[in-house]
């Protein structure tokens, strides 16, 4: 069967079968819907949460269209480091750290997309990108939030021993630490975990499906695997830095 000459695109060699993509998106939407219904959906997010998401989105836009655009002139597109990735990951980590509720990843991703689309992309490729980014990057972030529980990024952990000794701070009265592991380690670890999760969607979904589906690209699994592996070092570094920045911000504002 073919429509409009696109028949080859859904079954070009090596392409992720469209059934799997549809199944993934379908399951993702269903999961979001059920989870939302069970937990109270958007109503569970307080006004302050929504403002934090707005601030994170503003930061992501400033990064993507100004700082990133400037840097992009000097750093060519390459498989080792992504400027857009860096900004979005850090912005989303900060928002997640401030809100600490499952769902924030997907909502923030939706807002980021809406804002960038309103400003610049003219809804090109939508709603594909909304679904794709919410249900990959956003969902992965939410999975880590669900796994980490209330101690996300070690906000309820003690300081590293050396730091605590230097600062001579005693824990706040009535504040019980959830883990003994210092917050800095947890923040870096969870940041790295999210960073690693985020390595997957772009090469896999974009290279394996969106590119051939929308733009007639050729699927090269060697390149997909190479892109994933090549990105890991920077994902680890940026994830760790992002986690630590988040912990610092959350502690500074006493959230």
């Amino acid at each position, binding site marked *: 069967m073919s429509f409009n000459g696109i028949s080859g695109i859904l079954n070009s060699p090596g392409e992720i079968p469209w059934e799997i993509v549809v199944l993934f998106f379908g399951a993702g939407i269903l999961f979001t819907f059920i989870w939302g219904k069970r937990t109270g959906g958007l109503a569970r997010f*307080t006004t302050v949460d929504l403002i934090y998401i707005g601030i994170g989105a503003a930061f992501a836009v400033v990064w993507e269209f100004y700082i990133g655009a400037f840097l992009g002139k000097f750093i060519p597109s390459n498989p080792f480091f992504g400027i857009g990735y860096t900004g979005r990951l850090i912005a989303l980590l900060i928002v997640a750290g401030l809100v600490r509720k499952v769902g924030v990843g997907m909502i923030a991703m939706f807002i980021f997309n809406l804002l960038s689309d309103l400003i610049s992309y003219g809804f090109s490729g939508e709603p594909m990108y909304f679904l794709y980014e919410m249900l990959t990057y956003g969902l992965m972030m939410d999975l880590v939030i669900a796994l980490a529980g209330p101690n996300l990024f070690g906000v309820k952990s003690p300081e590293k021993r050396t730091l605590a000794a230097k600062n*001579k*701070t005693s824990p706040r*009265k*009535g504040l019980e630490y959830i883990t003994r592991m210092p917050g800095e380690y947890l923040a870096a670890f969870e940041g790295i975990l999210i960073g690693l999760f985020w390595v997957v969607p772009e090469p896999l979904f974009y290279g394996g499906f969106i590119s051939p589906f929308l733009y007639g690209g050729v699927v090269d699994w060697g390149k997909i695997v190479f892109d994933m592996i090549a990105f890991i070092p920077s994902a680890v570094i940026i994830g760790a830095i992002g986690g630590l920045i988040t912990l*610092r911000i959350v*502690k*500074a504002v006493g959230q």
Partner: protein
Amino acid sequence: MKALEIHDLKFYYMGREEPAINIEHLSIEDGETVLITGRSGGGKSTLVNCITGIIPHVIHGEFEGQVEVYGHDTMKTQLSKLSTEVGIVLQNPENQVLNYTVEEEVAFGPENLCLEQDDIFSRVKESIETTGTSQLVDRETYTLSGGELQRVAIAAVLSMRPKLLILDEPTSNIDPEGTARVFDIIKRLKEEKTLIVVEHKVERVLPFVDRIIVIDQGKILLDIKSSQLPHYVEKMVEMGIEVPIHYIYAKKNGIDSEDMDTIREKLREKNMIPEPPRRAGDSRSIMHASVKVSTSEGKELVKGEIDLEEKHILAIMGRNGAGKSTFLKGVMGFLDMDLRCEMEIELEGRDISREHMIKRGKEIAFVPQNFDLTLISKTVEREVEYSLKKRKIREHGERVEKLLDMFTLSDLRYRDPLSLSLGQRRRVSMASAMASGVKIIMLDEPTSGQDYYHKQILGKELTRIKEAGYSIIIVTHDSRFVYRFADRVVVFNNGRKVLDGTPESVFRESRKYSIIPPSDFVLRNDEHELVNS
């Protein structure tokens, strides 16, 4: 009917053992205007949040007791219902205004209440008329000045038609003209609503409040009729509250009057008029700056000059938009590229007009109003040594120690500057700005949003720095602070310098430029004489 009734209220923030507020009983009658004052951190905002229902509906913690607003128990009533009974205007209008245009901001509340279109229109019209903001209706909110923004914030709350209106330090971030207009609105509203005004400027609100409540450490320390204030002056001063200076002298000298002229007369008779604050005498000029800034189309924005003397505090005053900030930006080389600027800046005889801000910063330090933005390092110590390291200055350890000591930061050296208290953060920002051996320190509105107690501390700090050999420029709207701590004052109006002299000479004429002389000054100088001048 009672507007507010509180019984056995206690509220504990999460993880705290002491209650932030602890009030056995408080009631406010319908139509009363009440001033709530007290030091920062004493519990005023917590009380206000309990009245609006923000506690316990939005801010969670341990809540005990009962708060009723016009018969509605705040615990049991939905926030949306409460919002039509009680409204609140906050300190910083930038944070509370959230819509794109003024009209949308005012309509935001009624739209949330799902009112009919006609009803929304009439509420918006009414609120805009009350606050005198009709000429701003189509403006984007981000283009407004602080004073305009605060009036829009008041309009936005009035459109909810609350019976009780709370104004939480509504003028602490705006210029004298904006302050006067906000107070005019409050005077007008006094006839229509029950008002609670949380304010440090006791002197300014005293003429129209019926009652004064002082809160500290979460408790009501004083609850008096405003006419009783003269009897409680000493107690209020002890509690760190700014009271009109003539009340203090009247009390000290056994004068039974509240009228400034009478008190001054009696003090003169007794030869008890206090000496004015000591000003630094003439010294050598350390900086002469002449700045002319115009737009690329040729419209002149600022044309003025200042002379800063060594070991002096020079205050720059004027309305918002008078050109103070543009002038300072010119001095620091901060101006936007699309502005035309002609300047002559001579620092100790050396022309620095063509130098980049990196070089100017070697001798001039700047602490902006939002000083938090300057705290980029992870520890206090690193923040203070930042410029020494960047400028590769050796033996910096000693200098850092001296500064940490000077600003009582030694115990905090390993702490993250961003997690310190407001006062501590300002001190870190000042210490860091001064580290590379500057001679001049410029502070943009350091008194904004500060209570009397913290302003006194700041004034003393600046005096100490001055005595240590530095010269200081401050931009401020606070006449009382200027009168007490500045050696000279410059007033800008419409981009031009219009007054320059000692506080004594400047306050004689400053009313023309919306700068109201403080009671400290008026007590020592005849009002009649001022009017004639």
